[in-house]
């Protein structure tokens, strides 16, 4: 049946628990109308009836308490059903999150026939994600990403049903996060005063994401990857030594000072208020022990604590205290796999992110066997570009292909496509992310048996053209073209 831009509209179902006061849905209705029809101005007056089957409305009904003004979390219900039948299509979801997913699907069902008429086929869809954590990691430390780029990425994520923006916001190279309690961190640590994210910027990202059902998971990676923190905070990082001589260089955060932990308490107190998500990513990867080892005070501390020369114990000491801080402020923690590998005592419920590509299935087995939930990134490092169609190998990953019980398999929450920023900034981020990440999006949403790459190729090329139409500069999969005039 056809749809007429003049006639068709999306609105709340009569029994919906959400109504016009739900701005999340109101915004979504407007957005999706535009995605479907382009920016179309309604002519005044009644329209001419042209005959033939016409779909006049999409009614969106939220069944349970809508959660319209809430933030999404890892247990949010994203399920929905969509029945497309003349004259009214029905989208039903338990919560607004499902409605958002359903609106996206609905918009993908519509196509233009050879006369340009907007057309949709009768359909019956029951849908829900296979994995609840489907993320994209962006790195705003190696290269600053302007706000617009981040917002565009959130748009594209919604088109692909991604629901977590893992914001690796600071690292060695720069500290763009403007802290309210410690403004010197970005004053001294950002690339320049304009390469910062103000509170306003951060709020905008969080709300823009929320309206798309996307969680913002901030990562403040410590104790390694913290060179930029030292610029704005004296005595935070470990001074390195050569024998008895103190050098000009610094290493990871100094784990033996009380000031370190009072700083972290205050700092993460702020973070927990600024970022509403239940979880904070604490990093914990790639801690280089050399500087700690060289520092005489740390050597003494190691002796006092009976750690011997096992610096993993010092690392554990630090991370456990940090995890306790986070637990006290009632947030959940996510850490990189080294934290688990180095035998830090983790609280149950701490999520471990697996990123090392070497036999990562063994790692997942181990972690889930110990009862911890897992997020998988290892096979999905999108910054590792190569010539040709690499989307296929991302698509073919089967997250549950590891040795383990049913219970273990249920601990895999999902995964993340990571776009580290060493060679990426706003000039090349979008084509590098899309449509390659889309392959991962399907792997994390769709059922396990949806794996035919031939079929995926056909749909993904069309999806890519659709993203172009919607202003996302997704690069081509292969030779060919898109029908409508794309953005480029």
């Amino acid at each position, binding site marked *: 049946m056809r749809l007429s831009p003049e006639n068709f509209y999306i609105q709340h179902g009569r029994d919906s628990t959400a109504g016009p006061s739900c701005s999340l849905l109101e915004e979504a209705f407007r957005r999706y109308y535009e995605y479907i029809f382009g920016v179309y101005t309604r002519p005044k007056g009644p329209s001419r009836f042209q005959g033939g089957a016409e779909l006049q409305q999409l009614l969106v009904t939220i069944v349970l308490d809508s959660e319209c003004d809430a933030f999404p979390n890892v247990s949010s219900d994203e399920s929905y059903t969509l029945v497309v039948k003349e004259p009214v299509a029905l989208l039903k979801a338990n919560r607004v999150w499902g409605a958002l997913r359903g609106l996206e699907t609905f918009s993908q069902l519509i196509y233009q026939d050879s006369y340009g008429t907007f057309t949709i086929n009768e359909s019956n869809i029951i849908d829900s994600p296979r994995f609840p954590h489907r993320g994209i990691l962006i790195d705003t430390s190696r*290269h600053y990403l*302007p706000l*617009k780029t981040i917002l565009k990425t959130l748009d594209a994520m919604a088109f692909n049903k991604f629901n977590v923006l893992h914001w690796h916001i600071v690292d060695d190279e720069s500290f763009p996060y403007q802290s309210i309690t410690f403004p010197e961190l970005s004053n001294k640590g950002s*690339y320049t005063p304009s390469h*910062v994210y103000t509170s306003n910027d951060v709020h905008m990202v969080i709300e823009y994401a929320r309206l798309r059902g996307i969680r913002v998971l901030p990562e403040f990676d410590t104790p390694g990857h913290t060179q930029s923190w030292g610029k704005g905070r004296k005595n935070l990082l470990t001074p390195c030594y050569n024998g008895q001589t103190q050098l000009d260089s610094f290493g990871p955060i100094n784990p033996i000072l009380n000031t370190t932990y009072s700083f972290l308490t205050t700092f993460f107190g702020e973070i927990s208020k600024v970022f509403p998500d239940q979880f904070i990513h604490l990093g914990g990867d790639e801690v280089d022990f050399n500087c700690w080892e060289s520092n005489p005070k740390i050597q003494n501390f190691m002796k006092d604590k009976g750690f011997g020369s096992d610096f993993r114990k010092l690392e554990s000491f630090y991370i456990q205290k940090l995890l306790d801080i986070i637990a006290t402020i009632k947030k959940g923690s996510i850490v990189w796999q080294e934290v688990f590998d180095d035998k830090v005592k983790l609280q149950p419920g701490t999520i471990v992110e697996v990123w090392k590509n070497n036999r990562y299935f063994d790692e997942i087995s181990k972690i889930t066997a110990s009862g911890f939930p897992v997020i998988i990134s290892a096979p999905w490092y999108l910054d590792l570009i190569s*010539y040709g169609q690499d989307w296929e190998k991302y698509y073919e990953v089967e997250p549950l292909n590891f040795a383990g019980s049913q219970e273990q398999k249920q601990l895999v929450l999902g995964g993340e496509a990571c776009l580290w920023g060493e060679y990426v900034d706003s*000039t*090349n981020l979008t084509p590098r992310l899309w449509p390659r990440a889309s392959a991962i999006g399907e792997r994390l949403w769709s059922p396990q048996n949806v794996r035919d790459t031939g079929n995926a190729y056909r749909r993904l090329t069309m999806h890519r053209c659709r993203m172009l139409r919607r202003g996302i*500069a997704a690069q081509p*999969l292969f030779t060919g073209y898109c029908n409508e005039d794309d953005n480029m």
Partner: protein
Amino acid sequence: MAGSRLWFRCCWRQRWEPTTTLWPWPQYIQTSDRRYVLYPNNFQFQYHASSARSRLYPVFAGKRHTLEKNILVVSVVKSGCNQFPALESVENYTLTINDDECLLLSETIWGALRGLETFSQLVWKSAEGTFFINKTEIEDFPRFPHRGLLLDTSRHYLPLSTILDTLDVMAFNKLNVFHWHLVDDSSFPYESFTFPELTRKGSYNPVTHIYTAQDVKEVIEYARLRGIRVLAEFDTPGHTLSWGPGIPGLLTPCYSGSQPSGTFGPVNPSLNNTYEFMSTFFLEVSSVFPDFYLHLGGDEVDFTCWKSNPDIQKFMKKKGFGEDFKQLESYYIQTLLNIVSSYGKGYVVWQEVFDNKVKVQPDTIIQVWREEVPVSYTKELELITESGFRALLSAPWYLNRISYGPDWKEFYLVEPLDFEGTPQQKTLVIGGEACMWGEYVDGTNLVPRLWPRGGAIAERLWSNKLVVDLKFAHKRLSRFRCELLRRGVQAQPLNVGYCEQEFEQN
């Protein structure tokens, strides 16, 4: 309040070294700390076509303030603004900026263009916002006369604006040949006026995905204004699937046993019609593209289809070629080359034409693209130049072959003349081309994939052989990249870091 403490912290900026933004590095440059102010509201270019430098001194009688420069005098010996650049064009220039002069002197207008670009790279802005240029003496000329970039508009259509923008950035990099691989198997976007069906049936979309005659004219003129030659390639006999729908009978029907299989192969070399078509088609191409050279392709001819076709088998027998399809390929190419020659054009061909021993005219240019087969590209250069032909190097410069990390360094360190040969032979290597094949590239990702990586090749082809220090290059190229951003070019980063002005779309 956090805001008040975010005041601009930097006052003691590292002393600016303006020459470090030069890309590519000039042949000879001397610079000093002494600097002159430029005021945007009070600066102009003054063009003189003259043959004697001495006549220019009276011009400077005006401004006595030696610390300000308000004119760049552009003096060109051989005037003549309406020509097209050619392989033989002289691109030399000198730039003299001192207390007495602010002068750009060149043989030809092409050198003036190169000098203007360099001049623009010498101007820098202080932290306070004042424009300066330092006392500088530059004598510059390109190491190689053919410094090209290949774009493929068949695998993916590239909008006209994308092509024009690319020409702009080529000029920033002093690249001077736009090798336009217009058509191929995938699509035929070139609007032919003698054979409109080629475009109508062969393009992805005959309304939106074509280059009209007007578009082509625009590209040629836009390029000319930047001293860039347009080298058009119409690749045959392979890579021609898109030609088939518009010219029935042009391509070889493949056979499966005794029946046609329904698929097609390279151009059919056994039919007179083929050569009649080529004659007419290349007459059009010769008249549309003003450059002396046309690129005729000749690469990757797959013999299986020819082999399967009974008419071709008969033709082979008639000609006494036996089973050697290379001879059939030669036969086609020789005939084509003669046709094109008769239109007063020279030609460039891919290396297979040379490898398969096709008889070509001595002034043919051979383009080396294969890295290892049949021999290493350095060996190939040796063989080609040994036989007296001129060569173009592309093999190590395939920009479409992306990989993780700073691959610009590999492109930069290629030494084109690093092969066994006499000095005489080495002069036959006239330059090279960076190639951006289009299988995975279109308007969405072309620019970041092209720049600044393409710049590494641009410098290798322009600058002195001894300019190979990677640290020095990295410093300049990363600054040049920021300058590209400032000029609105979506050039991707070389490494971690930042530019004052980051790229924001729209």
